[in-house]
């Protein structure tokens, strides 16, 4: 493909791609996301490709393997367009029927969703309860895109926001739009992205960097991976727009070394964007130059912490650095570096395309837009969920998640992964937003939502989460390294019936000192789950300690 010289050429290319496609032509999309892949969706995909040939309908039916559709526990997911007919738990032996009915425009009745209680059918995506209550602004395109083909992204309007920003807006206008949209960082803290951009933009150094944090090392968090693997161009487009607003010349996508399909898709996306002139020198004839490099982690959770991540990109061990001078002023090689999470960047093209006013019309008072949530645990439907900020947890757990399986009662909701917190089910009507959740002691964090049923042992959960964190600490500072280790020892003793009566007092001291004295965010928040459990479930700890001493 030739390099695009102007924004008009991009629109011409888009028109050509769309002209070659017939919207009425059936298309079978197989989910190749992590969960479906684990359920052998690749076998289904191979069978589908062969069956299309076999039935001689290759020219009549389109076929693509896409990123994560979202409904992970019902995989392998197959979506047939037009009309988004959803098939669940598709096996290779179902393939001939799927192909034949797609060619004829019919529906395979036995593969569609049935309500587990009422038995009611739901054929189309918009009717399936799991999808019905969502607002899929960021993830909606994923089933329509083969992530390895830039054409698919351009066909759904991709890089339109970049063209708009470069041709019609100054870098200041882009920044103002993002500020006005009040886009808050999706990586955990909820810091306004626009303010962070502005700090980097105004820093005196000329060389500036922008970075996508695609590390996502938390347990029970898988939505960034779904986003970056399923639609890498959207994140890249956001990054390029951000770089333009900030005045950065170099970007990095920092991600995990252990997700081969994600690495493949990002590499392909970077190559294709470069080939089309959406990266490199003089992007779309605007005079703006920007390059992006893919960088992998070294397999430790703390690499996702901003200053450790930047040390890692420099080629050093990922040890956090004290942030009395912010990384947005002095980051990679002491140059101003703006780091945002995958989801934050993915929001940028939407804000530029549809405007800040549209964006602020979604969400709660102080948290705007939608939020991706990784829904898992003791819940009927699990997967990647996208809801407007401010949605009550009840909607997520019951309407989308379908409640707790096996007729059990829910006991607690754990939010925010290993450094998040647990709240009792009595707080299920709390809205999902940054400030509300932090007040309850379960900050949104990266967005992993774990439902726990009535049989859950909260002491064991606290121990399990600490066990994870102890292994992931870098070990540089004492309160994190030693504090967490001692907490883990005490909790292990309690779980194994060797708890002693002054254990709770020791735990209280350890959590306080660890959160006050640690160097980086990992240490500072490492005791949050334990703190929230001691706040809401203290009697369970006391009972375990008492039971332990009675047994002796």
């Amino acid at each position: 493909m030739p390099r695009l010289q102007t924004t008009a050429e991009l629109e011409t290319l888009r028109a050509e791609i769309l002209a070659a496609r017939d919207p009425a032509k059936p298309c079978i999309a197989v989910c190749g996301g992590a969960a479906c892949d684990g359920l052998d969706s690749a076998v289904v995909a191979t069978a589908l490709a062969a069956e299309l040939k076999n039935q001689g309908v290759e020219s009549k039916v389109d076929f693509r393997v896409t990123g994560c559709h979202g409904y992970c526990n019902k995989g392998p997911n197959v979506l047939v367009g037009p009309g988004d007919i959803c098939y669940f738990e598709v096996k290779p032996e179902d393939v001939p029927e799927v192909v034949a009915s797609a060619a004829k425009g019919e529906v395979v009745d036995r593969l569609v969703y049935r309500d587990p209680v009422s038995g009611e059918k739901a054929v189309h995506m918009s009717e399936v309860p799991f999808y019905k209550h969502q607002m899929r602004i960021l993830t909606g395109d994923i089933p329509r895109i083969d992530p390895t083909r830039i054409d698919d992204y351009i066909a759904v309007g991709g890089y339109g926001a970049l063209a708009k920003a470069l041709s019609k807006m100054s870098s200041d206008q882009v920044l103002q739009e993002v500020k006005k949209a009040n886009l808050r960082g999706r990586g955990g803290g909820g810091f306004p992205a626009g303010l962070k951009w502005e700090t980097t933009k105004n820093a005196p150094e000329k060389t500036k960097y922008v970075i996508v944090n695609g590390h996502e090392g938390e347990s029970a968090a898988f939505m960034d991976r779904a986003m970056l693997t399923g639609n890498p161009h959207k994140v890249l487009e956001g990054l390029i727009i951000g770089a333009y607003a900030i005045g950065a010349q170099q970007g990095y996508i920092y991600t995990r070394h252990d997700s081969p399909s994600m690495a493949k898709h990002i590499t392909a996306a970077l190559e294709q964007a470069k080939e089309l002139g959406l990266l490199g020198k003089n992007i779309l004839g605007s005079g703006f130059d920007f390059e992006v490099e893919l960088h992998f982690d070294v397999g430790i959770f703390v690499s996702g912490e901003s200053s450790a991540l930047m040390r890692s990109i420099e080629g050093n061990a990922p040890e956090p650095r004290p942030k009395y001078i912010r990384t947005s002023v002095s980051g990679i090689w002491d140059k101003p570096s703006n780091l945002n999470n995958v989801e934050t960047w993915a929001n940028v093209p939407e804000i530029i395309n549809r405007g800040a006013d549209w964006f602020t019309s979604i969400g709660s008072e102080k948290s705007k837009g939608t939020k991706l949530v990784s829904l898992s645990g003791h819940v009927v439907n699990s997967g990647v969920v996208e809801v407007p900020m401010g949605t009550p947890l009840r909607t997520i757990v019951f309407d989308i998640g379908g409640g707790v399986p096996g007729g059990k009662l829910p006991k607690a909701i754990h939010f925010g992964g290993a450094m998040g917190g647990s709240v009792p089910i009595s707080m299920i009507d709390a809205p999902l937003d940054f400030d509300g959740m932090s007040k309850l002691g379960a900050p949104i964090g990266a967005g992993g939502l774990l439902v726990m049923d009535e049989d859950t042992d909260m002491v064991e959960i606290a121990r399990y989460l600490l066990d994870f964190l102890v292994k992931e600490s870098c070990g540089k500072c004492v309160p994190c390294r030693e504090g967490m280790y001692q907490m883990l020892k005490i909790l292990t003793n309690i779980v194994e019936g060797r708890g002693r009566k002054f254990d709770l007092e020791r735990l209280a001291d350890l959590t306080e000192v660890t959160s006050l004295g640690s160097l980086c965010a990992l240490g500072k928040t490492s005791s949050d789950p334990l703190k929230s459990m001691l706040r809401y479930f203290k009697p369970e700890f006391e009972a375990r300690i008492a039971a332990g001493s009675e047994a002796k």
Partner: protein
Amino acid sequence: MTDITLQIDGKEATVPAGTTVLKAAQQIGVAIPTLCHHEKLEDYGGCRLCLVEVESRGRTNYVVSCLYPVEHGLVVRTRSEKVDKVRRVIIEELMAHAPDAPELVRLAYEYGADRNRFEKDASFCILCGLCVRYCDEVKQKHAVGFIDNGHAREISFIPEIAAQECWCCQECFAICPTSYAQAAYLMTEALAFPGRRRKEIAPRDAAVDRLAKIPAVPMTFVKRPPASKPEMTN
């Protein structure tokens, strides 16, 4: 460079911009305890013992003084109930590893720390990193480094470098607060290059010269020590 005036424990200090709170305090004779700080080395912020309470623009915050740069009008309190508690718990955590290290014993007395508060795990090293950083930054030999992460982190001499460099230096032994650097070095020597260091390095003095003439004892004649860990006192 402009001078900055701040208040530490009620005393006024005027220091150049960019100075850390710890340095400013030292200049006016206010003592702040540290374990990982060394004037010849880059500021590290690992032990967190030098944590202080700072008040700036009406907000109280807890920061480590070895890294925090001074600000105009900053009010620093080097002792408070919370600061003392953090220090006490840190000392208690470290005493699980090195209960008899003189510096820790002294600090424990000052802050009322209980050496038996937490379950013992006598590794003898408190991972202050003085040896590692001294070897990197001052000697530039990189003979000792950190391995592993989190609670599994430990210091380790790299035999290939240690065999060449350590015999005539051993300066890290003196700055180690627990004597573990010495123990780790001797262990490395015993395992990786017993007796070999003498041949390759020019002896420092007559005593070393005499030592070098004594033939190395073949490993087969060395009686193995009992399997249990020997008691070590500092």
